[in-house]
């Protein structure tokens, strides 16, 4: 007993001594309090993230490990597998671009293992998918399928890509193939239902558009007939506009239309060349007269550009331009728009009848008038 106690005491002494020294002395290359995290991050085993580039000088251990992975002396299949694993790691970190690089390198090995190649393509497809490169993703899914036609993940990916690309019939095809292999796969059932639904909605939208188009076409035809045939108003057609000449170039997009009780409403421009001003009336009823509008527009308040205060409606005269003869025709303001449009020299241009408004006795009037009332 005594000898034991002796030995224990001895070792305890040594131990105590060691502990004392341990506490006081620093060992060489110790981590300091400031840099221990940084230092830890340099040791491959404790790294939280991989560095972007592996500099063999800064990270010799990591570079060594990497060279093992990419050792060209190993069999192709193994190399491809390692590259696949590398890609998967990047994928987990959501570094999809790097993942694609790894997968591509793996594929370039052109090893004979169909499984590995199928997985490389499928995983690359997933990486592309997450980057939003749907077409590339789909191409990879197709390639994966070529290597391994029963690779379920490839089929699911293919279906998902087609769905995103709105290729619903193709998506259904992929789902069908997948369900043949795995009839109860929840994801495939879900994708199939979604693709089917979207496809039918797209078909409905196409039908609806057709119906609208037909409706619009018949409305246009009715309108044209009403203008040209019943009312005998001449429309100037030009290659620049719609063939029926009704396209309006007005910024507001206002167009002539057939309103209630069969009355046509025109977008009309009033031009005031003396002041370089215009007014746009978006819906001028054909049964209204110019006076109806002018008395409102130039009634109580005169426009700000009328500096001479002359544009009171009682003083105004209305003209239209006969382009062919380069002359102005005067119009009685009490005439209706319809009557004016029916004038044998009047042509509606650009779907918007325009009229020149001048003050009685203005020099413009005197200079340009050729056809008095």
């Amino acid at each position, binding site marked *: 007993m005594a000898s034991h106690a002796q030995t224990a005491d001895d070792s305890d002494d040594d131990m105590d001594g060691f502990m004392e020294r341990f506490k006081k002395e620093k060992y060489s290359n110790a981590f300091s309090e400031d840099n221990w995290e940084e230092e830890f991050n340099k040791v491959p085993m404790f790294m939280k993230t991989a560095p972007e580039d592996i500099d063999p000088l800064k990270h010799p251990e990591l570079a060594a490990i990497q060279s093992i992975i990419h050792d060209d002396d190993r069999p192709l299949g193994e190399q491809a597998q390692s590259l696949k694993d590398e890609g998967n790691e990047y994928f987990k970190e959501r570094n999809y671009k790097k993942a694609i690089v790894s997968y591509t390198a793996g594929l370039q090995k052109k090893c004979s293992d169909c499984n590995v190649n199928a997985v490389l393509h499928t995983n690359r497809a997933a990486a592309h998918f997450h980057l939003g490169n749907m077409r590339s993703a789909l191409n990879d899914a197709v390639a994966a399928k070529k290597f391994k036609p029963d690779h379920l993940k490839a089929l699911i990916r293919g279906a998902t890509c087609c769905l995103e690309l709105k290729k619903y019939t193709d998506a259904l095809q992929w789902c069908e193939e997948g*369900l*043949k292999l795995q*009839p*109860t796969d929840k994801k495939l*059932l879900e994708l*199939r*239902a979604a693709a*089917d*639904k979207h496809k*039918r*909605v797209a*078909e*409905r939208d196409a*039908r*609806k558009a*057709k*119906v609208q188009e037909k409706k619009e076409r018949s409305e246009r035809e009715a309108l044209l007939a009403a203008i040209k045939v019943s009312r005998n108003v001449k429309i100037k057609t030009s290659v620049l506009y719609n063939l029926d000449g009704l396209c309006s170039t007005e910024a507001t997009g206002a167009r002539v239309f057939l309103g209630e009780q069969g009355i046509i409403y025109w977008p009309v421009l009033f031009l005031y060349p003396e002041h370089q001003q215009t007014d746009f009336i978006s819906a001028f009823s054909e049964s209204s007269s110019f006076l109806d509008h002018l008395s409102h527009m130039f009634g109580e308040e005169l426009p700000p550009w009328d500096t001479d205060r002359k544009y009171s409606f009682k003083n105004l005269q209305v003209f239209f331009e006969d382009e062919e003869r380069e002359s102005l025709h005067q119009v009685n303001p009490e005439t209706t728009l319809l009557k004016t449009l029916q004038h044998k020299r009047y042509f509606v241009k650009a779907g918007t009848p325009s009229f020149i408004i001048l003050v009685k006795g203005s020099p413009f009037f005197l200079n340009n008038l050729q056809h008095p009332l």
Partner: protein
Amino acid sequence: MLSDVTAEELMSFLNLDTRPDIKGQATEYILGLSGNRDGCRFLQTKPDLIKALVTLTTDPSIAIVKDCYHTLINLSADETMHRLLVKNPDFLPMLFKNILDPGYMFADRICTILTNLSRHMKTCKEVFKAMQEQGISLAQIVEIFCTEDYNKQASLHYLGPLLSNLTQLPETRQFILDKDRCVVQRLLPYTQYEASTIRRGGVIGTLRNCCFDHVHHEWLLGEAVDILPFLLLPLAGPEELSEEENEGLPVDLQYLPEDKKREEDPDIRKMLIETLILLTATKVGRQILKTKNVYAIMREFHNWEKEPHVVAACEKLIQALIGDEPEPGMENLLEVEIPNDVEVKLKDMEAKELEQLEKDKEDLLNPDKAQHCAGIVRMM
């Protein structure tokens, strides 16, 4: 009829080793006999005949095999022959062995025979059992049915009515209505399959029988299956509906083009309506059909339909669609206080209704009423 001696001689010719020209004449003669009732009665007394025919389906001469199959079709069309046919241990296995073969040129005849055999419940069960014993699943049947050009020499349209007949059995309905698979969804597009009335009718018959299972109505009408548009499209016409009415319809029925044609077979039209009526049996079914504006489609249909028995079915459906729901406070009948004498009366009515429903179910599942399952080929 033939004397016993001649009959014996005839039977002896039905051997693979017989001279081809004699063999051919014998099979031709048998085929002729099978084409009429007396002939069938006579053949019924010859149990060895079935055995001979089964064997001869392996004959190298296509003409002989054809005659054998046609004879079997005629025999299977006669219900009294079913026992005899099914009793032969090689008959059903032989049929099932070849049905999945994509290169088998007589696959259509097999389907026709199976359809005939499965019309009535008893033999239907035997057919189903034999199918399973041969290791053939319903999944496989549905698969080849839905695969275009599976068999280049056979259209396999008769798999439609076969499936429909098989849905007399709860196992079949269970498989088709499996929520974890995609089975019924694959059949739906065929409700408008123009190329074959047989296929179309078979699928619609299948759907109708499945709708007897009330518990599945909500699922069938929901997004996972969405059976409603497929039942309505064949009944919908080119008549233009207002924008408001259109927007209330299921997506597939909106803005139909002006060249839209309705189902041309009146019996199929009736089956579709019967299926819709079945869906109105449950409250959830009624609600969905009402919200989806089925009434608009049936209103136009009613104006167009000329066949009286179809019009009658249509009116019954419209009744269910525009009829009153129970009054507020009465919707959940379990919570309503019912006076004693009324309670007795209601129980009595309920019993009678259930009885009627069971009877209707039997009537409808009984393929005698469904005229598309005949598949009779009479050759002379």
